[in-house]
């Protein structure tokens, strides 16, 4: 259900695993990739640090909250750590539900909470040197909308 790993993953395989129940009508997946550009600078690489132990626990809590709010049938969250390069997959969230509205909402909810509550940090390599990526206010805004419903 949750995997923190250095190695790459196969979104196609993960999606197949989520589509096994004949009660499932909708599978929504999100894959995050390393872009070669951020805030106007070239990005040559990305190093992902995390807080082992807490990471899994934080993701588990996010999934449990999603399962309380929506009719969740299956979910997989994968997050890579360590050194990555442009084009590499960073994160995968795949969700199965009976209907599409719930599947979309769960997937967005998990990503919004992951972005603000799971202890991962990105460090970018740019021509001006390495720099820790700043948290984005838009991510806070995205996460907060789920409190208002």
């Amino acid at each position, binding site marked *: 259900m949750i995997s923190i790993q250095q190695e790459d993953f196969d979104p196609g395989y993960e999606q197949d695993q989520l589509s096994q129940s004949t009660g499932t009508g909708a599978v929504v997946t999100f894959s995050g990739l390393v872009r070669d550009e951020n805030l106007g600078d070239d990005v040559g690489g990305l190093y992902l640090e995390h807080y082992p132990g*807490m990471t899994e*626990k934080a993701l588990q809590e996010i999934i449990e909250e999603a399962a309380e709010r929506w009719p969740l049938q299956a979910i997989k969250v994968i997050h890579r750590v360590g050194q990555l390069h442009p084009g590499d997959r*960073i994160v995968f969230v795949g969700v199965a539900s009976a209907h599409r509205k719930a599947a979309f909402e769960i997937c967005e909810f998990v990503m919004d909470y992951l*972005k603000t509550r*799971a202890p991962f940090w990105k460090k970018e390599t740019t021509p001006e040197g390495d720099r*820790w990526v700043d948290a*984005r206010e838009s991510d806070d805004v995205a996460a907060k909308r789920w409190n208002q419903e």
Partner: protein
Amino acid sequence: MIKVLFFASYREKLGVDSLELDQMPANLSALRELLSAKGADWQEVVNDARTLVALNQSMTRKDFELSDGDEVAFFPPVTGG
């Protein structure tokens, strides 16, 4: 004894990823005071309004009592995903 962890830019700024305190501060506020005494960088890290704190691997925004064996982490806003 309590364990204190620092991550990402804080870890780099302090040059410390983990330390063990034999002294037992009573609560988070007392721990903050104790760490602040270690220098200007420490004071900034533990008192920054954006600093996130986790007690035993759960984030919390409140003060809390400390017990023997607790793990407290200080880290900047998260940027995964």
